[in-house]
């Protein structure tokens, strides 16, 4: 019996059956590999990690003008029994007007090694671009590599104060000359 793979051929039913069979085998192989991957993942050695527990209603806030620097400060307390490396990273910040800002942070405050039972203050310094529209920008500070590592952030970019007004001084009048009488 001649079996054709052509859809409209004389043995179309066989072709359809073979196609279904091949699809089934491919799917079975894919699911088997996925299962084996999960199994391998569950038996691989554990790497104990760190969970971030923020304070109640923690929201990091900073305010600055365009061209200045905003500083976000947060205290980090290491309650684990060994040293912990903390790497804070800002996500892109978005304003209500739909402006997305990719803040450049100061590399000097990139990471910190915190000893057990020690509290350290992390300060993330953000340069505010001159061309950034005024508004309130929201995003998150991620403590990279930790679980539940997102802390909400609000940066208010305000208008620069108007140039300082010149002190009003009375015009100096030239001394009047008395007309000779």
């Amino acid at each position, binding site marked *: 019996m001649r079996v054709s793979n052509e859809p409209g051929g004389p043995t179309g039913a066989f072709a359809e059956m073979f196609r279904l069979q091949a699809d089934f085998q491919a799917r079975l192989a894919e699911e088997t590999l996925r299962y084996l991957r999960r199994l391998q993942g569950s038996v691989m050695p554990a790497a104990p*990690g760190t969970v971030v527990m923020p304070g109640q209603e923690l929201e990091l806030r900073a305010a600055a003008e365009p061209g200045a620097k905003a500083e976000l400060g*947060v205290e980090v307390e290491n309650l684990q029994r060994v040293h*912990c490396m903390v790497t804070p990273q800002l996500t892109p910040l978005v304003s209500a007007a739909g402006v997305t800002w990719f803040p450049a942070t100061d590399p000097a405050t*990139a990471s910190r090694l915190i000893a057990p039972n020690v509290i350290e203050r992390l300060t993330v310094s953000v340069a505010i671009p001159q061309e950034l529209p005024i508004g309130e920008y929201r995003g998150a500070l991620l403590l990279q*590599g930790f679980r539940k590592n997102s802390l909400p952030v609000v940066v208010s970019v305000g208008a620069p104060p108007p140039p300082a007004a010149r002190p009003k001084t009375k015009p100096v009048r030239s001394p009047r000359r008395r007309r000779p009488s």
Partner: protein
Amino acid sequence: MTGSIPPANRVRLIDAPDESGRSTATLVASLAARLSTLYAVSGAAAVGSIVAGFAALGREASRTAEGAAIRRALEKSRVASNGAALWSTLRIGQWASLAPPAPLLDQLRNDMALLLAPNLEETLSLLPIPGEPAGAMGAVDETPPEFLDCMVGMWVHSRETITAIEALAEPTRDAVTVMRGPDRPEPPSGSILR
């Protein structure tokens, strides 16, 4: 963990509640288990797991402003197209998707923490300490690893490695830049030696 309420602007770093946590013993056990696993798995599985780990790390880092900026810069250049071509033609992505991603950042931080542990010698004398399997924490992310994920992940991992090693050296780093040699007797002088 203490029960007191922390100030509003403070975050606490704690152990996962359903795990044995980070202690010198568990970190030594984790490192020993990783090393002993290498004898039981193929090179392809081990390296595939590392590649998948870089990709997972890069995927997370791409959410940050710096990671996204690096990624966008790579996307605009020939790097992205050439990398993607190698990734698909040599089936690197398919190979990496078969292995569970290794938690590279956790492993790096744990190994660095061991180097600072005050009780390491006592703990090493307790070996062999039974290792703990990843269990539910080893749940695999189904997202297929991409070339740019892997690139960004390698960048994050390298930067973290450099920073961690610098932080380890910092407390004992010498500020002195000029060192004098030991005192030597005056060299002989005379017209014959000239």
